[in-house]
Every structure is written in structure tokens, then in C-alpha cells.
């Protein structure tokens, strides 16, 4: 299986703090990769580095063999890597439809006019917000805002979807729906990188997992493998022998 995305020696320093330390991993196409680890381990920062939110301090990232290390966020988005944010970010004064159209117009495929409207409506259907494009952001419930943000991401028809704790804060029913939705993304042929804390989701969704602690990779493998790895358990629960 070809590696779609490759990280080699990726490092990010904020002043004296090393948030991500020489991360190496590959993301295989058409798979869901879980990026997990305790709080502060550098997972979101890694996603930020992949999406171009800020520059790397060292290392390289490549997409299908082409380096994307020094590209800016908009160029990375144009190459088909799209992301959601840890705290949902919708465009506050715009309608739901306009929010999703933003992804359709400027993403990977650059639609316009009626085409963009059609794509946006289709994505709203897909996330369960069909026919509600006229609503304003202020009228949405929490899970609806997440749905709209995902629709915006999908409207750009990305190859790689980065989800930053997208399942956080959902009740069991919503969680079920959310897992189902993410699985359908993989089944359509997209590649998903999932930063998550919800263990059930990780077990049922991820094909592979990379575990981070204090900025470094401490384990890699299938969910079953990593979740029974003593090093991983220690990282999450802390050292009992203190």
C-alpha cells in the first residue's frame, strides 16, 4: 500500500518548549489513522504542522512523494488536505450554506456558481444538515456546528481529512452517528487522520494508530496492539512507581 503522507523527523519548537520531537510516521491511503496520546503530547500541533498552520522547526512532510514542508496553509489546502479545528470555527455572520460554499469555492476543485451551490447542498445532506442551508450560525446546536464545519471541509473534496477532536463533547447517540459518518469517509476512498481521546471511536474506526507522549512517538500499530502496550498505558495513567 502506498504511503500517501509521510512525516520524517518533524520537529516543532516554541521558544524553549519542544512540542513535537522528531516524529516519523506514514499515512497509508484509504485508511483511518488515529493520532492519540495524553493531553499536551503534541497531537494537535502535529495536525497544525501538516495543515500548514505554522512552519516546522525541522524535518519534512511529503504528500505522494512531493515535499509540502514549506508550503503555506492555502497551498496545502489546494492540494487536497483539509481540516477541522479543535474549537469549531464557523464564519459567524454567514449562513450555513455560505459556510459550506467556502469550502467548495476555494478547495481542491474550485467550483463556482450553481456548481458550488450543488456541491454544498450535497455535503449538507451527507452530514445530516440537508435543507437547512438558510440557517444562521447563531441558530445551530453544538453538534450541528460540527456537522457544518465537516461539510465545509468535505465540500472541497479533499483527499486527506484531518479531524481535530471532532468527536469531543458528543452524547452517545451523536457519537454513534459521528463514527458512522467518519467511517463512510474512509469507505468513499478518503484518507483520514483522527486526533481523538474517545477510546471507543478509536477502537472501531482506526486501521492504525500512532501514540504520542511529550512530543515523541511511543508506539505504532493497530488499535488493539497499541492500547495493550504497557508504555502507552503508562503514558496515559502515569507511572505508578514514583
Amino acid at each position, binding site marked *: 500500500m502506498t504511503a500517501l503522507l509521510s512525516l520524517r523527523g518533524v520537529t516543532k519548537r516554541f521558544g524553549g518548549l519542544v512540542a513535537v520531537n522528531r516524529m516519523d510516521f506514514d499515512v497509508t491511503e484509504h485508511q483511518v489513522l488515529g493520532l492519540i496520546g495524553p493531553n499536551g503530547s503534541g497531537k494537535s500541533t502535529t495536525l497544525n504542522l501538516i495543515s500548514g498552520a505554522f512552519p516546522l522547526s525541522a524535518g519534512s512532510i511529503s504528500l505522494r512523494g512531493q515535499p509540502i514542508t514549506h508550503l503555506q496553509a492555502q497551498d496545502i489546502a489546494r492540494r487536497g488536505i483539509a481540516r477541522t479545528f479543535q474549537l469549531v470555527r464557523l464564519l459567524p455572520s454567514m449562513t450555513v450554506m455560505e459556510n459550506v460554499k467556502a469550502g467548495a469555492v476555494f478547495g481542491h476543485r474550485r467550483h463556482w456558481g*450553481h456548481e458550488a451551490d450543488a456541491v454544498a447542498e450535497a455535503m449538507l445532506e451527507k452530514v445530516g444538515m440537508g435543507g437547512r442551508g438558510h440557517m444562521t450560525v447563531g441558530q445551530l446546536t453544538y453538534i450541528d456546528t460540527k456537522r457544518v464545519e465537516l461539510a465545509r471541509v468535505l465540500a472541497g473534496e479533499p483527499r486527506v481529512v484531518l479531524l481535530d477532536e471532532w468527536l469531543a463533547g458528543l452524547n452517545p447517540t451523536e457519537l454513534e452517528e459521528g463514527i458512522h459518518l467518519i467511517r463512510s469517509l474512509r469507505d468513499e476512498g478518503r484518507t483520514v487522520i483522527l486526533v481523538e481521546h474517545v477510546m471507543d471511536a478509536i477502537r472501531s474506526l482506526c486501521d492504525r494508530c500512532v501514540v504520542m507522549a511529550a512530543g515523541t512517538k511511543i508506539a505504532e500499530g493497530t488499535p488493539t496492539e497499541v492500547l495493550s502496550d504497557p508504555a502507552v498505558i503508562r503514558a496515559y495513567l502515569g507511572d505508578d512507581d514514583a
Partner: protein
Amino acid sequence: MTALSSRDWGSLALCAIALIIAACLPLSSGAYNLTIGVTIAMYTVLATSWALFSGPTHYISLATAAFFGVGAYVTGIGIQHLPYWTLLPIAGVIGAVMAALVGLATLRLSGVYFVIFTLGLAEFVRQAITWIQNISGTKGIYVLTQITEAHIYWQLLGLAALVWLLGWLIGRSRLGFALRIIGEDEQVARHSGINTARAKILLFMVPGAVAAITGAILAPRYVYLEPALAFTPMLSFQVVIMALLGGTGRLWGPLVGVIPFTFLWEGISASFPNQTTLLLGVCFLVIVYLLPKGFVGLVDAARRRMRNSEGFA
């Protein structure tokens, strides 16, 4: 592009009629009314083009005076060597290039740096020109032309029509959409695939060019041109206030701000000439606290209230 609805055609017709009526002003009224007309037309052009950029992006530009002054000097210097009709495009190009340079330097950064940079720009250009004039020995420039106040008025009307047309087109374009998104959340814009720096710079060239052309048109009115006259920072502040007072949410917003403010300013200048600065300050405060979306905002709020009450009828 999507086809025009019947409502669009209706608006276009209304605008055309309004412009034709406005164009008749020099033929019917006296000299004083024409002077006010020119002032209103000038500020409308400046404020509307200002709002095209600063409205959606929320970047407050105080560079209007700098572009205006440069345009005025293009006419002042050029009128002796070139035919008049070439001066306006030249001024436009110079203004656009200046704006692009300013944009390249500052639009990658946050809005605060942009405001301060543009604040200093007019002062900087004025000092530089004064210095050049001091060492080269020249003082001011005489701008002697056959152009009358009426000509200036009609040119400004034409420019206003062009600015409105351009604003309308941009509003329906990809660039317009991109800029609205940038104004809402620039990070989301970038991660959605928008090259935010380029979009901002491109759009900023519009008020730059338009302000320069306006300055070039107005230069004959001054007759004697010197730096302090051409580059008054006051102009930048007035344009900002008028645009914000009217509201940047609609194309006609700035016009609605220009008209009352012009009369207010004339009134205060006549009765309390030293208190114009105080007036400016009070207006800024009124805008921030009472009219954050300008008169346009009030109209929108009223419409929304009417719609809501109709829903219960």
C-alpha cells in the same frame, strides 16, 4: 456568473436615473451648490472605494490622503507636459502600484500594523515632498487649466458610477466572497484554500487607484498646489468616518454617510472653526458605541424587526 434578476435590473435603472438627475446639478444651481456638489461627489467616491476594501476585511486604511496627494501631484506636474486625459490613468496606475507596495509590506500582518503604517504614510510622503522642494528650491506648483468646476463634478460622477459598478461586480465574484471570508476568520480562509495575502493586496489596489484618480481630478480646483494642501491627514479620517457612519455593508452605505457629515462639517467649520477636530473625535466615538454598522445597520435592524412582526400577523 449568475444571471441578473429583475430586481437587479430595477436597481440598475434607479441608479442610472439618479445619476442623470445628479448630473444636471451644474446646469440648474448656483456656484455654491455646485461646490457642495463637488465636495459630496468627491467624498462619495473616496468613501465608497475605501469601503470596498476596508468593509469586508476590517482593515482600517488611513492611506487615502497619501494616494489622493500623489494623484494631485500627477496632475500638477503632468499638466505641463502631457494631455489631460492621460493624467487620470497614469494617476490610477501609480496609486495601484503604491497600494500594492503598501499591501505587500503590511497585509501579511495583523490589522493594527496596517492602520499605523497607513497613518504614517501621508505624513511621511508630505515630509518627503517638502524636503525635496526645500533642497530643489521650488515651492508650490501652479495648476492652470481650462477645467471648470462643472467638469470636475461630471468626472467625479463618472468615477462614482465606475466605482459602484466595480463594487457590484466584485461583490458577485470569487474575490468578493474570498474577502468576506477573510473578514470573518482569516485562518479559516487560509485553510480553505484562499491566498489571503494576495486577495487583500489585489483588492487594496482599488481604493489606491481610485483615490489617486480623485486627487488628479481635483487638482485643478486648488490652482496652487503644495504638500500641506495635497496631503492632509484630515482627509483620511473624514473618509473613514463617512464610510463607517453610512455603513460598509452596502454599496450605497458610504453615500448615506457622506451627505449628512458634509453638511455637519460645513456647519461646524462656519460657526466653530476650531472645533472641527473635536467633532471628528465625537463622531468616531458615536460610530463605535452607537452605530457600529452605520446607518445601513439601522436600516437592516429595522427591516428585520418588521419581518419578525409580520411573521406573527
